[in-house]
């Protein structure tokens, strides 16, 4: 029988990424650039919401977008056309999440001296983007009404890391048995500090509140 030597490692697979992310966050803070990591399931309305929000804030701060959700430039082009702000496409090669290193590579292709806010549209997935810190200043996710109010119970980690949960597509509330109060309660269970903002990216209802939250967050980030 062949004997083996055992070398103990005892290291989390996420450790290196967590360190990379922390370093990136510090660097962005020094540069005065706020990075918003926007996550959701596919089709919850990330791109539509971004267009609405950006058109409300682009005269006040300088915004740019990095698209990682899908492996074509459809969303990046849509955002550029609808808002006129710079928007680039990251090629994730079908990966299910972005890590800090990929985020940094994306930022290297952005005019960092000329922006206050970079929004990352992350890969549409509620599982692993929650485990991989991108180095973002804040995490936001979009939960759309058709997905149901019990999503925070099904994806606890995702909800626990988010500073804001945007509940989108409230224009279709009459057709679904989505309970907003229950939703707020479940989100609170995962993270008592998370803000819940109901919106309709279609009608524009509630988008002002999300836009003000974002402007305030960017302002605080740029202080000292």
């Amino acid at each position, binding site marked *: 029988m062949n004997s083996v030597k*055992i070398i103990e*490692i*005892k290291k*989390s697979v996420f450790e290196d990424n967590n360190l990379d992310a922390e370093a990136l966050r510090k660097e962005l803070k020094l540069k005065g650039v706020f990075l918003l990591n926007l996550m959701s399931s596919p089709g919850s309305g990330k791109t539509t919401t971004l267009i609405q929000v950006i058109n409300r804030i682009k005269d006040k701060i300088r915004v740019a977008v990095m698209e990682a959700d899908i492996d074509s430039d459809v969303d990046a082009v849509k955002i550029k056309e609808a808002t006129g702000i710079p928007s680039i496409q990251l090629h994730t090669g079908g990966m*299910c999440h972005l890590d800090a290193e990929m985020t940094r590579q994306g930022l290297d292709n952005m005019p960092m001296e000329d922006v206050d806010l970079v929004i990352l549209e992350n890969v549409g997935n509620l599982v692993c983007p929650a485990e991989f810190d991108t180095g973002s200043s804040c995490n936001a996710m979009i939960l759309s009404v058709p997905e149901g109010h019990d999503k925070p119970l099904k994806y606890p980690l995702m909800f626990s890391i988010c500073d804001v949960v945007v509940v989108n597509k409230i224009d279709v509330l009459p057709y679904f048995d989505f309970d907003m109060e229950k939703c707020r309660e479940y989100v609170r269970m995962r993270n008592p500090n998370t803000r819940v903002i109901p919106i309709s990216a279609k009608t524009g209802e509630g988008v002002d509140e999300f836009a003000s939250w974002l402007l305030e967050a960017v302002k605080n980030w740029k202080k000292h």
Partner: protein
Amino acid sequence: MHELGIVFYIIRDVKKAAQENGVERISAVVMNIGEVSTIVPEYIMDCWRWAADKEDLLRGAELKINTLPAVSYCENCGMEYETVRFGKTCPHCGCEKTYLLRGNEVEIKEIEVPNQ
């Protein structure tokens, strides 16, 4: 697929450890994986075989998985319980103010190196 991405992280960490320890061949990598981590053991095994065999260091190396139990804590009564069996409701007091203590680990425990 998620597991393939994770396998690439494992390979990167293992290569680094091998270099630090002057190891040229690895016969097995032992992982600690929590019951409620996002890893599906069957998927990660398939991804491992495919990716590991592309590396000289890891050709033929086995991936061994230790499953760690998930444990939740109840803020209301202060007791711990098995997460997978009872979910988010504390079996001691029925309260839902509970959170996961452990069970989402994805950790490289050790590597096994053949003795010459």
